[in-house]
């Protein structure tokens, strides 16, 4: 019996271990490498080899489950069959869930860190040529500011507050098609992933402190050759915000007359006033603003073709963009061409070639022309009898405006043009080495050059009159980035493990040349014709990075996820002993809806908890900041001269941030409601600061690592599908982010000052905090300006506050920060049959703006020959004793426009960014024209801004550099209100 039993068992087992072989192919019949095969109900399995082949021992009663990321799972019953040919089809739903994270891609479920994804449709609702504008208000924790309306200018992007106080760039790192850096046109974007926490950005180590934006460009989706054409045409009108300059009459009666108010009688001394200011002036209405700024056309065209075969896929596109500026003689044109191809060379080797060429040219402007256009007195007729702009200089009689300049004439006799071209070539070669190992080498060559031309004709008034001036500068940037990675993937039953390891190097070079000369004959503008006062300049620079990269991802049963990465960077910016830095990161998540207690829950259909920790860095201070230097940047009597330039700091090293993030993702009612909540705490240490030195050493600063800044906050993103019917859908998304910023660890407060306006960085304080004398309004008895005087004891504690008329007694104090308390956006998308109405809004609250333009255009008579702005409804100028006024008497205005909190205003705003109405024509109409889709639409951008800020647009720069201080509203190129007609075709 025992023997019989043994025999049967043998027989059974013989049956059970039938050798089953086969091949797995994809939808194009290409072998699929690394597909998982599992015997259902067991942990027994295998993967396909490089030819897509597999073999496995299975019993006839078994079922084989074929599994591959991004493809629908296939199931085959073994039965008598021993040779299988399995064709797998892509899972469209799953593909849309793939999130490109830079070095790797993951499904949404797999992600353990704080990321936000925007696809093409979500981006291109705004007509813009800059990706920043497309992001405004759409991603929680991402603050976007369009700080200039100049054609071709980009928006400022800040992710999770500000983590650095050094001057310069605080923009996030861009990664295009998996490689650091790169250029693209917004139309070519398939998706954008914003990486917000170190769990995701840790992979970018040294350069990830300011967050990372991963851009993926389009590729062919189907075998059918597809064409897409998009066109937009419309107008920009200048948006001067709340600035309206006074008319001739207003300037005469409400401003100039006040200069003559008698100190004793408090009445206007009309006899003297009319003598100095003839009454006829009132009727001379030559307001400059509407003559310099005009509505201007804007157009954009995009054409793309894509398609793919078994071995070859392509996406080719071209974009043409032409924006005429609202400010006289400005504009920008761009052409962008992209060619993306994918080649399957052999079953093991694939090759991707992406080429992007973007070129632009345009004309910029001179700051002073903008300045004088606002401030010119409206009594001055800027035209000759024949309608041409009038030449005006210091000798011109009967010209009222200060400095005797006619901006119309200056603009027409000068040229500030620029052009540039940027070429990126990506070569990505992937080699499948075996079923669990793949090698990829991603390489980008980048070459860019630009040229700036500044020309002032000899006929223009001003400093170059009778001489003319030309300067040209040209820059060449080139570099190579090469990333070489092994990618591993293994599966042990329910344990899934994958990862990557490799290295990267990045070299970038700059070479610049500039020259200028004077003595230009009339009618010419090239440097060749200059005859005097030549200057040349130029230089070379380079920067080198070397990095080691590794990452491991593990998950158990697609329920518990763990990702760890380790990056080592070395940068040429730092001395040998401190140039290497280590950047570990770890993140984990838990899919709770897979737990039994939630499996059948009708309300909650998905629930995920996430947590991450990691270290990121910031090396961006430029080369050689650690050396003691004497700059050979000048001459004396035409001989070379070197001046003390920099104090040495042999220990200089990176800024680094420890980032913590906790998040929860909830999907309710079959994902009709989608909620994301994140809490983060980012501590940036060893801040690279320009530490103040006693000036008596002959140096202002030394680069040092000191202090820390903590950004702590939360973000909420809420997407809801409010109505979902057959012909009617309505969805909204809302986001809000709150960030607290706190400085610590400084030996002494650091002050920055520009135009007398100061900001302070001190322990316990916030970045970009204004430090100004506090304005206390106007003395009701005398009309004099008043400030707060503070007295302190020996410890620096305040012992008294009082009112003073003496500006020099009013010590500066902290009066608010340029950073918002919270910011976010709201958008709504309503579709009925083919009609879609989309609206998007962005807001921020609680930031202060220093309204620097008011210093000139609300000047209390300090500048009698500048036009002034129309006052806000609650402004009142003091006229006589007893007046409760906001503005001092012009006769008693000493130092009233010196920096103080008087000009510091609430910068909160709500802005309707976009209203977009589109209609997708019924298919039968389209097909009659042999087209697939026709969509027509109207859109408006920046139509409404709600703010108390009484200046230009409240989107004010947060860049800390050279001429700009964060939160200071200086004369800027006004933003635009934009009205567009759009036509999109697919065929």
């Amino acid at each position, binding site marked *: 019996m025992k023997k019989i039993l043994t025999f049967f068992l043998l027989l059974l087992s013989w049956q059970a271990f039938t050798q089953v072989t086969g091949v797995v192919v994809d939808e194009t019949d290409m072998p699929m490498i690394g597909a998982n095969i599992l015997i259902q109900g067991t942990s027994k399995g295998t993967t396909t080899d490089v030819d897509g082949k597999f073999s496995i021992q299975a019993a006839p009663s078994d079922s084989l489950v074929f599994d591959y990321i991004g493809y629908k799972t296939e199931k085959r019953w073994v039965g008598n069959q021993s040779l299988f040919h399995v064709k797998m089809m892509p899972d469209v739903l799953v593909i849309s869930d793939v999130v490109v994270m830079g070095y790797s891609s993951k499904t949404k479920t797999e992600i353990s860190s704080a990321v936000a994804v925007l696809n093409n449709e979500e981006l291109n609702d705004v007509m813009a040529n800059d990706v920043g504008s497309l992001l405004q208000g759409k991603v929680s924790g991402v603050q976007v500011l369009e700080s200039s309306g100049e054609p071709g200018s980009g928006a400022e992007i800040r992710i999770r507050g500000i983590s650095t106080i050094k001057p310069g760039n605080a923009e996030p790192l861009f990664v295009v098609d998996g490689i650091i850096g790169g250029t693209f046109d917004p139309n070519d974007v398939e998706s954008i992933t914003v990486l917000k926490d170190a769990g995701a950005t840790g992979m970018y180590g040294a350069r990830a402190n300011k967050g990372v934006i991963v851009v993926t460009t389009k590729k062919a989706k189907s075998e059918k050759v597809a064409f897409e054409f998009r066109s937009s045409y419309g107008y920009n009108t200048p948006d001067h915000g709340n600035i309206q300059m006074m008319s001739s009459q207003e300037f005469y009666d409400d401003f100039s007359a006040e200069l003559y108010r008698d100190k004793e009688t408090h009445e206007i*001394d009309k006899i003297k006033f009319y003598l100095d200011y003839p009454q006829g002036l009132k009727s001379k209405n030559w307001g400059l603003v509407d003559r310099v700024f005009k509505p201007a056309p804007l157009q954009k065209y995009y054409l793309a073709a894509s398609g793919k075969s078994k071995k070859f896929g392509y996406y080719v596109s071209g974009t043409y963009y032409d924006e005429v500026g609202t400010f006289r003689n400005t504009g920008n044109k761009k052409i962008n061409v992209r060619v993306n191809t994918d080649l399957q060379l052999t079953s093991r080797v694939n090759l991707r070639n992406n080429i992007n060429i973007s070129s632009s040219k345009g004309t910029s402007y001179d700051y002073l022309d903008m300045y004088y256009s606002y401030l010119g007195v409206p009594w001055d007729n800027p035209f000759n009898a024949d309608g041409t702009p009038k030449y005006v200089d210091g000798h011109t009689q009967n010209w009222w405006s200060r400095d005797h300049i006619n901006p119309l004439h200056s603009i027409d006799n000068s040229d500030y043009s620029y052009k540039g071209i940027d070429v990126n070539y990506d070569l990505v070669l992937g080699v499948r080495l075996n079923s669990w190992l793949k090698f990829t080498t991603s390489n980008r060559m980048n070459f860019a050059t630009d040229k700036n031309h500044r020309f002032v004709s000899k006929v223009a008034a001003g400093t170059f009159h009778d001489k003319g001036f030309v300067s040209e500068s040209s820059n060449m940037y080139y570099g190579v980035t090469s990333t070489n990675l092994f990618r591993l993937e293994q599966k042990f039953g329910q344990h899934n493990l994958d990862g990557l390891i490799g290295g990267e190097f990045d070299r970038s070079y700059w070479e610049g040349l500039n020259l200028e000369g004077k003595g230009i004959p009339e009618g010419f503008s090239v440097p060749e014709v200059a005859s005097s006062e030549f200057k040349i300049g130029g230089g*070379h620079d380079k920067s080198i990075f070397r990095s080691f990269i590794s990452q491991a991802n593990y998950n158990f049963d697609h329920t518990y996820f763990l990702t760890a990465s380790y990056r080592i960077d070395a940068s040429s910016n730092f001395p040998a002993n401190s140039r290497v830095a280590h950047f570990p990161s770890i993140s984990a998540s838990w899919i709770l809806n897979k737990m039994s207690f939630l499996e059948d829950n009708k309300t909650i259909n998905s629930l995920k908890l996430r947590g991450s920790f990691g270290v990121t860095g910031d090396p961006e201070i430029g080369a*050689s900041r650690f050396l003691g230097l004497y700059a050979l940047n000048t001459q004396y009597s*035409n001989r070379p001269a070197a001046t003390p330039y920099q104090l040495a700091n042999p220990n200089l090293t990176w800024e680094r941030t420890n980032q913590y993030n906790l998040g929860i993702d909830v999907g309710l009612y079959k994902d009709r409601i989608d909620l994301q909540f994140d809490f983060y705490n980012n501590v940036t240490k060893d801040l690279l600061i320009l530490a103040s030195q006693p000036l008596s050493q002959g140096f202002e600063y030394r680069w040092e690592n000191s202090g820390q800044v903590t950004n702590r906050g939360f973000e909420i993103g809420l997407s809801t599908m409010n109505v979902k019917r057959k012909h009617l859908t309505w969805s909204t998304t809302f986001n809000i982010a709150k960030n607290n910023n706190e400085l610590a660890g400084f030996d002494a407060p650091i002050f920055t000052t520009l135009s007398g306006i100061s900001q302070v960085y001190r322990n316990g304080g916030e970045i970009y905090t204004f430090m100004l004398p506090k304005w206390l309004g106007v003395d009701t008895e005398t009309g004099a300006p008043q400030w707060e005087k503070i007295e302190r004891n020996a410890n620096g504690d305040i012992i008294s506050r009082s009112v003073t008329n003496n500006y020099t007694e009013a010590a500066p104090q902290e009066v608010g920060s340029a950073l918002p308390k919270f910011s976010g956006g709201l958008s709504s998308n309503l579709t009925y049959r083919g009609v879609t109405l989309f609206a998007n809004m962005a807001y921020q609250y609680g930031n202060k703006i220093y309204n620097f333009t008011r210093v000139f255009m609300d000047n209390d008579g300090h500048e009698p020959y500048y036009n002034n702005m129309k006052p806000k409804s609650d402004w009142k100028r003091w006229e006589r004793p007893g007046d409760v006024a906001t503005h001092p008497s012009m006769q008693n205005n*000493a130092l009233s426009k010196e920096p103080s909190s008087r000009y510091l205003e609430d910068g909160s705003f709500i802005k309707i960014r976009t209203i977009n109405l589109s209609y997708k024509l019924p298919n039968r109409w389209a097909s009659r024209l042999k087209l697939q889709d026709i969509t027509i639409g109207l859109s408006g951008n920046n139509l409404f801004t709600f703010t108390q800020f009484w200046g230009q647009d409240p989107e004010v720069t947060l860049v800390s550099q050279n001429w700009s201080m964060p939160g200071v509203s200086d004369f800027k190129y006004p933003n635009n209100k934009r009205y567009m007609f759009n036509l999109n075709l697919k065929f």
Partner: protein
Amino acid sequence: MKNTLFLIFVVAIFFSACSDLDVLPNDQLTTGSISIASDGIINVTNGNYALFKDGAEFNGIVDDNNCYLRQYFQMIDFAGDDIVCGQKTEDPLYYSFTYTHSASQSNSRFFWYVSYKITNGANTIIEFLEAKSSLTDDEKQLLGENYFLRAFVNFNLVRFYGKGYNNGDPSSNLGVILRRASGEDGQKARATVQEVYDVVLEDALHAADLMNQSRGKEYASKEAAWALLSRVYLFMEDYTNTIKYADKVINSGRFTLETSETYPSYFANALSSNETIWAIAFSASDNRGKFGSIASMIYSNGNSGWGEEFATYGYINLLQEHPQDVRASYIDTVFADDGTIQKKNGLEMFFITKFSFQDGDPNLSSPVLFRLAEMYLNRAEAYAHQNNETDALKNINEIRKNRGLADAQINSVPAGKTLLQVVLEERRLELAFEGHRFYDLIRNKKEINRTYWGYHIVGLTIGDINLSTQPSGADNLVIDWDDPRVLYYIPIDEIIANKLCVQN
């Protein structure tokens, strides 16, 4: 699999291995390479001169407004009574007119900063050359020039930021911080006025000994060091030495006064003039234009400058006592179409052209820091204090003879005037706008009287101006010679970063 993994790891390390990450700048000398480069010492010395004319980067920007010499002339003469403010301005030069100084005004901060940058550059060269066992003649000259530059900037610093040598006790009054070594600790207290003057004298004397070459008017020379000594001793009321070093310069035979015929073109051609002892060379490419030239505030041809400040009636009236005085050629009166003097903001426009017209350019000049005429006038002032009327007037007449006043010699002190007054009037006429008048008054303990219409009167509006009357009642119309505000505040940057430095 183990082997494969090991191999992968090795290859990954290879890909990320450090290559040459040492990047050196290609437009800068490093501290170590100054002494190695064949012309490193000459380059840094040239740099010390260049800092007088350049707009060095400050607060992260190169601001056209910032230039050592622009601040030097403006911060002295705008506080005096030769130039009236014709327009309120954002430029901190305004605070010199109004005496509303602060520790944070950027012109003063820049002036202080660049002074010490020159000192730092000079110290670097001095330390390097003093460490050598023997010096060539060329090296001795360069060493002397660096001692001279250090003395010159220290003397200017102590006048801007310290009380006058004859105001109170110089051995207890605070002067400025003395930096005599390039690498010393940043924390350092201010030396006394006496200590600063001692070091200035020591450096200048040493410089005079070392310099034996004449490299051109744009470089320091033995005679420039003597001229500095004459000026310093005058401030110290050491009249014997004032005369001694002025004599040395005058008797060196290297210099002659411009004549009545040539004087009107002197300042446009200062570098090639025999009257110049030392001037800072501005070449065509150093033209700082409307936004940064010294001329642009006090002169405009309608386009070239802001032209916002004018000569005062006090100066114009003195000049008009003798219509033949060729010094009037540096005043350019602006007339309106109707033939009256043109007004700007209610004030009559008298432009000043001492800093214009090198190569015909309205904004270009090579500012003169020492010239022969001053030596005569230093002697005159010293003799006046010694009550030596004959020699004082002799020196004055030597100047007048060459300024169109050969027929208006002063042979005796006119009734109602003192000898010192006569000397100071001649100094005012001759040296106006060159950074002297303000200190002539203070040094001689005379008030600065600015009772005239102008925007130095804080809060003045055009409606207030009535040229037929004198202003009254405003603050700061008359400034005492020992007013605390005749010196500037120590810049805020120094106070914050240097705990040992005490504010004025």
